[in-house]
């Protein structure tokens, strides 16, 4: 509310939108939503718009759309029904608007209830920073099986698919770039962090494949403090010394797979 008084904001502050204004008018006059006297409401609605104009409040276009909807309904109500016996059973031109108002009103109430919840919860404080770990703790190279286990956990925790099949091309190459970019900034990160940005399974899987590929190319190392421990991903040249004999000398050597035996999944090519 104390933002720069942009005109648009002022009008939105008074009423959240045309439905809000209508609800206000209905309440003010003690009317039933299900049986709005459309002529009266339309007139009041228009006079509010006039007032807003007089006060020089800029109006969102939606207010005008609603005005025309109201006038359309009013006109439809005036049209005689061809068969007078059907008068009561014919579709009420107001029905759509009534439903919208009822639905909007429900969510407005829900917003109020949620605000109360938030107020109640605001005094409860939780720890807010993740614990920090020493890099020295991470000295053991994670095997493919450790990686798979960790990945399975990620997959298990991934939210269920939202019910639609989503096709989108994510290439391993792009993911590899992405991971390297991330590691450029931080030199190491938790295994789970890698997947934090993706919610869809296919995303997770491609990320994991990219990870395996990078390990095979000796661009990154996956380390853990002990067997079954949490896995951390390091840029090859930033990994703790003792852990990675191949780069212990300072410069990465040729990407010949090591005989360490723990990455049995990657095929040896020489």
């Amino acid at each position: 509310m104390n933002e720069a008084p942009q005109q648009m904001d002022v009008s939105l502050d008074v009423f959240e939108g045309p439905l809000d204004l209508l609800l206000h008018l209905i309440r003010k006059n003690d009317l039933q939503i299900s049986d709005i006297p459309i002529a009266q409401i339309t007139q009041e609605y228009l006079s509010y718009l006039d007032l807003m104009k007089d006060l020089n409040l800029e109006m969102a276009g939606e207010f005008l759309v609603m005005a025309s909807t109201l006038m359309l309904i009013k006109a439809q109500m005036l049209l005689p029904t061809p068969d007078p016996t059907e008068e009561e059973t014919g579709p009420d031109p107001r029905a759509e608007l009534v439903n919208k108002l009822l639905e909007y009103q429900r969510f407005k109430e829900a917003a109020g209830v949620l605000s109360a919840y938030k107020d109640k919860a605001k005094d409860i404080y939780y720890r807010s920073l993740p614990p920090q770990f020493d890099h020295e703790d991470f000295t053991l190279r994670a095997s493919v099986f450790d990686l798979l286990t960790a990945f399975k956990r990620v997959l298990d925790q991934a939210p269920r698919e939202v019910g639609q099949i989503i096709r989108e091309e994510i290439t391993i190459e792009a993911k590899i770039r992405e991971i390297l970019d991330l590691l450029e900034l931080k030199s190491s990160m938790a295994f789970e962090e890698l997947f934090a940005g993706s919610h869809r399974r296919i995303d997770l899987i491609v990320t994991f494949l990219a990870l395996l590929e990078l390990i095979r190319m000796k661009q990154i190392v996956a380390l853990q403090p002990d067997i079954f421990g949490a896995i951390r991903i390091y840029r090859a040249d930033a990994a703790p010394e003792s852990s990675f004999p191949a780069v212990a000398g300072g410069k990465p050597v040729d990407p010949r797979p090591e005989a360490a035996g723990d990455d049995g999944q990657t095929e040896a090519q020489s």
Partner: protein
Amino acid sequence: MELRDARNIMESLLFITEQPIPLKSFEDLFDKEFSQDDLLKMAEEIALDYQVRGSALELREIAGGWQFSSRSEFAPWIRKLFKDRLTYRLSNSAMETLSIIAYKQPITRSEIEEIRGVEVSAVLDTLVERRLVRIAGRRESVGRPLLYGTTPDFLRSFGLKRLEELPNIESLVPPSTPELQSELPLEPQASPVSEEPAEPPSEPKVESNS
């Protein structure tokens, strides 16, 4: 493993984490040695422990997991210590938008706008930025619009254990008698926060002996 040891491990993990830990995570952590029922019992025991001894901390079930928190009566002190960190209120339009998302997720922007009758993209950005709402996928329809849903942070900042705990939307407004509701009923009928076993038997008063 002894039950007692497992409980202590659980307590230390709960102490150290910044996110609610689901019981499922403990189940995996202990390699399924304990059932979720056992683990629930352990968590409740720890919670009771803290409660009985009148601790300033409490273990609560929140946002799909368990997490330690400070008790609400210490909030003023916490705010005093962190006075430079501002919390800001959500505007009415943000609250309306958020509640529509909470109940109708996953939902597209245009569906929200249909309900609210106004444009919501700026509000939506704010909600995403504040990590109360996240993109939950795309709808496989024309234009493949983004779908929005709420986050665990949403549950936590509204004191909800899970989404199902949201009050039944149909019960909020008797549709035919709007005039009875002319003032917003701000009191939730079932308070989600206090139904936990967190009511201390003897209320220790907070003394600020300075």
